[in-house]
């Protein structure tokens, strides 16, 4: 059986082996090594739990652990609080503002949380614009950005779209007849919501919430830029970067991060398991929508306005910072200038050029791997292909920090011959590989979805007319997948451009740094905030444009080929 499959697809089998090798080398080995080291005695190399004991004996680490949990949970709560009214309005009422709500959902996504963190500090910090005004008018000072609050605030603003989208989708999937049959039996209003609508929307909601918790727990950039160091991720980074890669604490923390990540994903999967409540019936899904009374309309618009102001705050703050000269202890910057942009593009253009280079290469690797894996999984019966899929997807559970630490540990002792014996771990191409591994799951999903749209009969008819496998793939399959592949490339590009956790660990000198690193470096000093913000604007523009392109590409391509929407 194994043999016959191999002979059927000789070339693809080799490709599969190569991909497996790549994944093992650059994903599995580093992560396993990290776990290994955490359980290893530093001096003897024996298996031990002493590192974990040391961890829990240290007050700072205990505090960090609970803080990370606290921040994760609070973010989920606050983000849910933002999304529930919006999801409610769009799913229950005929509401003209639905389009605004949808775009409200996308705006935070184009700016990674750490980019806006300092800007938010300028606006909402103890001496920020809002508090200065509040002091003047009311004599009060609200600790929006004090310590952990700041992290929670910034993260919730950034992540509430995930929850909003999940919640809306869950509500829209509820079949109308679920609600009508309850009404028919005497139920209405809040009772109906509590007994029928909420339980049916819960699984989708829980799945979204678990993923947000995971991402917040792992986030390195935001706490660092807000100077909040008593959380797990910053602690790991600080230990490794100040003490070195021999320090076991960084690895211990990595183990915790991975365990929590896996637990969150498992929870999400559990929530959705066997509860496919989405039914496609005559008359369509979604709850019955009713007209809003004037009072309700006013309230709805008010809430949306409030949320919109908050959602645009980081962008607004960032813009002010980037165009401002000096901005401290004042509501607005002293003056406006283009100098920041000039400085950034003339003095340190390598941040931009590196970003374009790294992200392009990472995106390329991702779509090549993604297409190959998708084809192998969906079109062949090669043994172990499901395993390949799982391993590629498992990168989603590995926090960027852990990959960074893993690469440092795994590849440090190898030297790169053609670069004057520089350690392999600090070679810039490793950053590219790390980025591609991190983004591979998403690219793979995009390619899979694209391939599933292409009927097998299209390939078979080509083969029937004499085309070999690779000719068919080249001439038929890939062109038909093009929209999805392009979308996958563009999203890989965009997300790689603003990735920080892994990049911070792996960048050894400023000249090698991409945009995200540049922002981090600049934001360390008060004088650098302006240029840092300019870089931030550049990052937002890059991500925004990529998102737009990817949407246009998919939409136009699908319409042209008369195919259903991908994703």
């Amino acid at each position: 059986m194994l043999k016959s499959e191999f002979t059927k697809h000789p070339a693809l089998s080799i490709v599969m082996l190569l991909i497996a090798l790549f994944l093992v080398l650059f994903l599995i080995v580093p992560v396993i090594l990290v776990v290994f080291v955490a359980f290893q005695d530093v001096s003897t190399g024996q298996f031990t739990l002493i590192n974990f004991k040391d961890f829990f004996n240290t007050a700072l680490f205990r505090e960090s652990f609970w803080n990370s949990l606290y921040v994760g949970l609070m973010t989920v709560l606050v983000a849910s609080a933002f999304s529930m009214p919006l999801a409610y309005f769009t799913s229950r009422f005929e509401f003209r503002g639905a389009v605004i709500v949808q775009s409200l959902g996308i705006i935070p996504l184009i700016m990674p949380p750490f980019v806006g963190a300092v800007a938010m500090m300028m606006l909402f910090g103890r001496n920020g614009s809002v508090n200065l005004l509040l002091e003047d008018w009311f004599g009060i000072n609200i600790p929006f950005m004090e310590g952990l609050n700041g992290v929670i605030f910034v993260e919730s603003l950034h992540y509430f779209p995930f929850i909003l989208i999940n919640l809306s989708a869950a509500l829209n999937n509820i079949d109308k007849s679920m609600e009508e049959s309850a009404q028919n039996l005497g139920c209405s209003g809040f009772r109906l919501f509590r007994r029928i609508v909420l339980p049916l929307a819960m699984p989708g909601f829980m799945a979204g919430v678990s993923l947000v918790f995971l991402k917040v727990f792992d986030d390195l950039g935001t706490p660092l830029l807000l100077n909040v160091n008593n959380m797990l991720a910053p602690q790991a980074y600080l230990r490794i970067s100040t003490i070195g890669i021999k320090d076991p604490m960084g690895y211990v923390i990595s183990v915790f991060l991975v365990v929590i990540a896996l637990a969150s994903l498992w929870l999400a999967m559990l929530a959705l398991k066997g509860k496919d409540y989405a039914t496609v019936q005559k008359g369509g899904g979604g709850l019955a929508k009713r007209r809003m009374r004037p009072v309700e309309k006013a309230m709805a618009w008010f809430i949306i306005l409030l949320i919109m102001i908050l959602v645009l705050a980081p962008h607004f703050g960032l813009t002010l910072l980037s165009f401002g000269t000096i901005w401290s202890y004042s509501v607005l910057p002293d003056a406006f200038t283009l100098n920041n942009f000039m400085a950034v593009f003339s003095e340190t253009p390598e941040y931009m050029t590196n970003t374009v280079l790294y992200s392009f290469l990472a995106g390329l690797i991702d779509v090549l791997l993604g297409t190959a894996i998708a084809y192998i999984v969906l079109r062949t019966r090669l043994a172990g292909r499901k395993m390949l899929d799982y391993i590629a997807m498992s990168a989603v559970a590995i926090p960027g920090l852990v990959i960074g630490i893993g690469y440092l540990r795994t590849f440090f002792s190898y030297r790169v011959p053609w670069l004057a014996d520089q350690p392999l771990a600090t070679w810039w191409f490793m950053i590219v590989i790390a980025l591609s591994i991190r983004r591979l799951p998403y690219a793979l999903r995009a390619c899979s979805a694209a391939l599933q749209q292409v009927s097998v009969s299209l390939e078979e008819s080509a083969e029937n007319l004499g085309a070999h496998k690779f000719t068919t793939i080249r001439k038929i399959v890939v062109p038909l997948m093009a929209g999805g592949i392009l979308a996958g490339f563009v999203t890989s590009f965009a997300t790689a451009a603003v990735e920080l956790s892994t990049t911070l660990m792996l960048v050894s000198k400023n000249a090698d740094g991409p945009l995200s690193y540049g922002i981090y470096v600049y934001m360390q000093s008060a004088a650098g905030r302006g240029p840092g913000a300019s870089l931030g604007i550049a990052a937002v523009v890059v991500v925004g444009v990529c998102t737009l392109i990817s949407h246009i590409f998919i939409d136009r391509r699908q319409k042209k080929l008369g195919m259903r929407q991908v994703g």
Partner: protein
Amino acid sequence: MNNNVSTDTNGRNAGVTLKGISLSFGRTRVLKGIDLKINSGEFFAFLGPSGCGKTTLIRLIAGFESAQAGEVHIGKQEVSHLPPWSRNVGMVFQNYALWPHMTVRRNVAFGLEEKRVPRNEINERVNAALELVGLSDLADRRPSQLSGGQQQRVALARTIVIEPQVLLLDEPLSNLDAKLRIQMRRELRQLQRKLSLTTIFVTHDQEEANSTADRIAVMNDGIVQQVGSPMDLYDRPANLFVAGFLGVANVVEGTVTLQEGKALFRSTDSAVAVPIGESSAGASHIVFRPQNMTIHSSDVEALPGMLRLVGRVNHREFLGSVVRYRVAVGEHFLLVDASYQRGVEPIAEGTPVTLSLKKEQIIALEQ
């Protein structure tokens, strides 16, 4: 203050009266002036093709749609303004709409919980309802673990348990396979008789309507074409649509002329000529059923009171219980059903044949 539908004197059942119902969705007129009276305890069918408005009508009675004009009465009460949860009619949806996050028992208990019935009474009534539909041992399962037929019974139990005044069924059998459909329609009928529950059910299948309903309202294009018992509609259709919808029909177009003082219906190609009564003097079509004609492979004399037609077998279809012949008569193709007997060879295609039909079997229509 009781804003709900009150039960009438015999405690439960009520008739339904619709007066002048007109309903449009935007520009589309879906119901155009519906007047219907459904009697208490009746098993009534709304029969018609897709898009005729029958589902909209039943949803109107349940309160999920509002008419722009007209009234809905349940029992003696006008309910047009009442929301669905106050109407005390039980509706079984086409997809059953069982809540997947609740067990069978919780699903069935739902309506009673909404009525604030005490817990022990709920348990009693739920058990009774489940027993009535034969699902007592599946009470603790989830809907996803049940077959289609079982799900339908749960949906039924769920509505019956609240003792509604009217039971509404929206194409209850269309999602079941053929055998199950026949079994379930029998069970539905038995259940309805046992409870004497006024029942309205919607279907596009004339066989279903014919076999179960006391009376049928045939609908097309938002208008009630005719109301009557199945046999009434079958034997005395009011128009061509009803004639064709209730069963296979041979339709011949023609005109009535007077010959020697007698009215004669003559088809356009003169192949068919039938004397008809004066009351049908304006007839433009005649209709007769395949099973009422007799087919002979040899020539047969015209007997008094019988119509004799001559033709040739064009096509023969073996349907198991009957053999259906498609016979060319003049320009017409007529369908003739002959009961199939094992061992008797049916007539071959191409054979010249004689058809005979009793004149009483001919229906004259004016459209």
